[in-house]
């Protein structure tokens, strides 16, 4: 038979079910955030690992001008190299039907027989191209964006000649999970795609018969890639090698890595905060709930139950709530985590998804939540259980209240007695009031901590697209051109303004730290594409020295005035020492700038440009695109409005999915806290209120006592919540930092407003529920029994 004490526990639980459920949901939200965040990240990370392994994603990559195929053997002979793949890679313009602006494709050669050693493609549909039939396999994103299927024809400008190519199939590749056109900020699968063609087709077209211009290799496990890279650079030096780089610098990988790192940051920073907050709230709520059981605890002790038995009884009560909360949290977390991983896998176009289950994370989440709950309960019970039963059973002696404005009695008359009651009640238990305020403010804070990133992304967009890179488009030439190209561009239809730029792949080195970046030369009087300082004011590029983004400067441990080594990875591959003349703001990528003439002379070249930034007459855009499609020299045109759209889609989508889930969970926590606060206050003051009803107070009057208290606590919690939320946001920006993005810490006023509104709504709903209970207070019961 179930013991009477256990029956009491179950019945108490049933009586308090709305509160128990609210507490359980707060716990569940804490558990779920951790489980889903870590679960989604680990699944995606494992999937990427498996994908890379299955498709033999290379470890080191190198681009060069032209080398004979025989060189492959020398590369294979480098110590630590496991496999080598050579190929031809060329950018070309494609004329896509139904698209006015030109699209670009990266042409990649497939070895004879189609068997790739490294960076194997994953055929989604169709088959490998037939060398005789002028066929190619298209990257699946590009194919999807243009509705290409097996048998579709596209026209590509290959080495100045229009060629019709038949699509034989679509494929994914670990190398091109993200496909960024040259100079593009964000992947755009409509405007940039990959075409895999047979080597025998591509070679002759570019005069690379029996030669290659791209090489990738895999390493023997445990080998230091740097030594291999050094040997490889040596080997390729004579063939126009542009400097080999590791997987972490490979564009698609770096992008994906940045995305995953953000997911990981979110799963590492937000969930522990949620877990802590929910633990604190559970602790606070349960201890108040149990304090209400003072008389019953006294009674149990009077009967001869030991303090330990009493503590265990309430421990059991809390355990049941915690188990429910943990179970809901685990189920919801695993389910949401899997759902989210699926969404991201689709977003990253992984060919498959590996689900991981992590019992350690489940254990941590459950353990932390349970410990917090139990600690709160035991603490509360202990306070009462160790009282002598006679003291416990009698209600606590009437508290000694104080006048707030002692010595100023005249002022007091201005307040109604109920206002006096509310304030005295709040000031009398400063610790309890403070912990309630803290509890509510933490729910405001986690909302702020979840919602801020939307505003920050807007700020990033504003700075990047409206203040810094204000051009409508950038035309990147297939290779550097003389200054006269600028005038040719100015004559193109619709071009209202054109400014030149020079971009060169370089390696910055400061002592042991080095980074590959694109060094960009711009004119001093540039107005389209500007460099901004910390206060977002345009910086005039100095005649001497290099200007770099704060993120690059931090990585290289450089300050204004320091000297830095620039290794040019093209042409004569010279090394130069130049001063850092200033450090500027940049949220996206690692960037470095020089004045274009200073850069030309540093490189020892005649004035050449890599492309132009242009301002466009929107009405004549189509005319420009049509002309560009026929212009072999224009390798790629990046359009700002599309970049902006893609930026929003990519980054915003990535962050939005996760943040929306977190914000929803934060709202649940906020509601759970405020509801419990209101319910417990009612229990604590129910008798007092019923007595006031007996004295003739109206329902509205006594409701205002409790709701007034709730309102004051909720209001006081707002500024504190904003402050704590801002701190959470700061911690998250630190965690979000990757080499590709730096999310600025911008918390807009509407973030605070939304967080507060959600909490106010939770308070209003709780207030209404409590109000209904106040209306049903039993006056007779009060008269019958003692206080």
């Amino acid at each position: 038979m179930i013991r009477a004490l256990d029956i009491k526990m179950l019945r108490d639980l049933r009586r308090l079910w709305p509160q128990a459920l609210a507490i359980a949901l707060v716990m569940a939200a804490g558990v779920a955030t951790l489980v889903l965040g870590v679960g989604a990240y680990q699944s995606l990370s494992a999937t990427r690992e498996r994908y890379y392994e299955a498709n033999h994603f290379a470890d080191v990559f190198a681009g060069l001008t032209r080398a004979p195929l025989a060189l492959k053997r020398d590369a294979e002979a480098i110590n630590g190299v496991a496999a080598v793949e050579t190929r031809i890679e060329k950018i070309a313009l494609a004329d896509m039907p139904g698209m006015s602006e030109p699209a670009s494709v990266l042409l990649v050669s497939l070895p004879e027989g189609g068997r790739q050693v490294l960076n194997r493609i994953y055929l989604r549909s169709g088959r490998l191209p037939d060398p005789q039939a002028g066929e190619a396999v298209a990257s699946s994103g590009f194919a999807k964006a243009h509705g290409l299927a097996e048998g579709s024809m596209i026209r590509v400008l290959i080495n100045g000649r229009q060629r019709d190519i038949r699509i034989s199939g679509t494929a994914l590749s670990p190398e091109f999970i993200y496909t960024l056109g040259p100079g593009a900020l964000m992947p755009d699968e409509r405007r940039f795609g990959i075409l895999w063609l047979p080597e025998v087709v591509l070679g002759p077209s570019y005069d690379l018969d029996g030669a290659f211009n791209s090489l990738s290799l895999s390493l023997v496990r445990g080998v230091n890639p740097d030594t291999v890279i050094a040997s490889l650079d040596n080997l390729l030096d004579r063939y126009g090698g542009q400097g080999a780089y590791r997987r972490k610098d490979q564009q698609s990988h770096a992008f994906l890595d940045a995305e995953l790192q953000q997911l990981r940051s979110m799963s590492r920073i937000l969930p522990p905060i949620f877990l802590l907050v929910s633990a604190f709230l559970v602790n606070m709520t349960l201890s108040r709930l149990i304090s209400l059981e003072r008389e019953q605890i006294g009674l149990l002790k009077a009967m001869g139950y030991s303090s330990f038995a009493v503590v265990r009884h309430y421990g059991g009560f809390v355990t049941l709530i915690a188990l429910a909360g943990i179970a809901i949290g685990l189920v919801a977390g695993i389910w949401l985590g899997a759902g989210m991983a699926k969404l991201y896998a689709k977003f990253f176009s992984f060919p498959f998804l590996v689900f991981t289950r992590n019992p350690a994370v489940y254990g941590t989440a459950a353990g932390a939540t349970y410990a917090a709950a139990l600690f709160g309960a035991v603490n509360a019970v202990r306070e009462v259980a160790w009282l002598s039963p006679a003291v416990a059973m009698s209600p606590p002696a009437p508290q000694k209240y104080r006048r707030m404005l002692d010595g100023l009695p005249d002022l007091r008359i201005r307040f109604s007695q109920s206002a006096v009651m509310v304030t005295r009640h709040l000031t009398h238990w400063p610790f309890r009031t403070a912990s309630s305020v803290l509890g509510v403010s933490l729910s405001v804070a986690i909302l702020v901590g979840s919602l801020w990133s939307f505003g920050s992304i807007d700020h990033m967009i504003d700075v990047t697209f409206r203040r810094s890179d204000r051009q409508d488009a950038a035309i990147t030439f297939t290779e550097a051109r003389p200054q006269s190209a600028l005038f040719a561009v100015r004559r193109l239809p619709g071009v209202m303004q054109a400014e030149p730029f020079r971009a060169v792949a370089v390696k910055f080195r400061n002592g042991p730290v080095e980074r590959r970046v694109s060094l960009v030369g711009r004119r001093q009087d540039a107005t389209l594409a500007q460099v901004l300082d910390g206060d977002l004011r345009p910086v005039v590029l100095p005649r001497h020295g290099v200007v770099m983004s704060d993120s690059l400067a931090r990585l290289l441990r450089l300050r204004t005035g320091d000297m830095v080594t620039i290794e040019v990875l093209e042409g004569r591959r010279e090394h130069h020492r130049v001063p850092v003349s200033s450090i500027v703001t940049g949220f996206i990528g690692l960037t470095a700038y020089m004045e274009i003439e200073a850069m030309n002379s540093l490189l020892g070249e005649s004035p050449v440009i890599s492309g132009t930034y242009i301002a466009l007459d929107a009405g004549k855009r189509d005319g420009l695109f049509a002309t560009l499609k026929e212009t072999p020299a224009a390798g790629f045109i990046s359009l700002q409005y599309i970049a902006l759209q893609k930026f929003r889609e990519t980054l915003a989508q990535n962050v939005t999915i996760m943040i929306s889930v977190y914000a929803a969970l934060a709202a649940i926590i906020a509601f759970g806290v405020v509801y419990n606060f209101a319910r417990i206050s009612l229990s604590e003051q129910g008798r007092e209120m019923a007595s006031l009803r007996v004295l003739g107070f109206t329902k509205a009057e006594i409701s205002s006592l409790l709701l007034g208290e709730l309102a004051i606590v909720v209001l006081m919690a707002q500024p504190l919540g904003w402050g704590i939320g801002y701190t959470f946001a700061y911690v998250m920006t630190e965690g979000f930092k990757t080499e590709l993005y730096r999310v600025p810490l911008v918390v807009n006023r509407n973030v605070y407003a939304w967080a507060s509104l959600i909490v106010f709504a939770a308070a209003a709903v709780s207030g209404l529920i409590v109000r209904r209970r106040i209306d049903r207070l039993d006056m007779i019961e009060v008269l019958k029994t003692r206080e």
Partner: protein
Amino acid sequence: MLININPADAFRGNGWAMENGPGPVFRVSNLCKTYRSGEVEVQALRGVNFEARSGEFIVILGPSGSGKSTFLNIIGGLDRATSGHARFRDHDLTGASEAALTRYRRDHVGFIFQFYNLVPSLTAVENVRLVTEIATAPMRPEDALALVGLEGRMDHFPAQLSGGEQQRVAIARAIAKRPDVLLCDEPTGALDSRTGIRVLEALTRANAETGATTLVITHNAAIAEIADRVVHFANGTIAREIRNSSRKEPSEVSW
């Protein structure tokens, strides 16, 4: 699980030995109790001397604040004295540890309070079972309820019972463990005369059938007539004691 401890073992563990004899059940000497509540100091007991024999039915009278509840709490092991001695048989209650007092209450004392103090979430029989489950040699809960005339209301929750019925459940709960002493603090205080008499009948019957020394605190002088002895409290001490030459039946008194 709660461990049922043989009372003899329990007390032996604390250096006490059981004694079952005709001697006094309670022996209290010079008992003092001072409460400090914030800045106020209240002397609730100022040197109480008292004895009670086994099976005796004692009524304690006195105005509010005379110290009678404090006295009852101390000899019931619910509270501690500031000075003086209180002994149950030959066991010192004033120096006992918290654990020893818990065992004392569990094994020897039954309490009845003015406001019944039933657990609202348990039915009548479950409220009684709450005690029998931790007692050494209890009655069946059903028997205890039958003794107070509530065999028909066993599965009712406190909220479904009248005040008198609730108090009788409380009596059943107190006697179900077959306590050595039954301590009642204003058991009829919240009840009207007719219901109060039914409760007193239940009490005297429990006293007669279990042989528990019974102490009843009351404001109500009329109740004094059903006792063996009447103790008057005033200003924290016993002002006088009266032994009734004959006890009246509860039905014979009224107020």
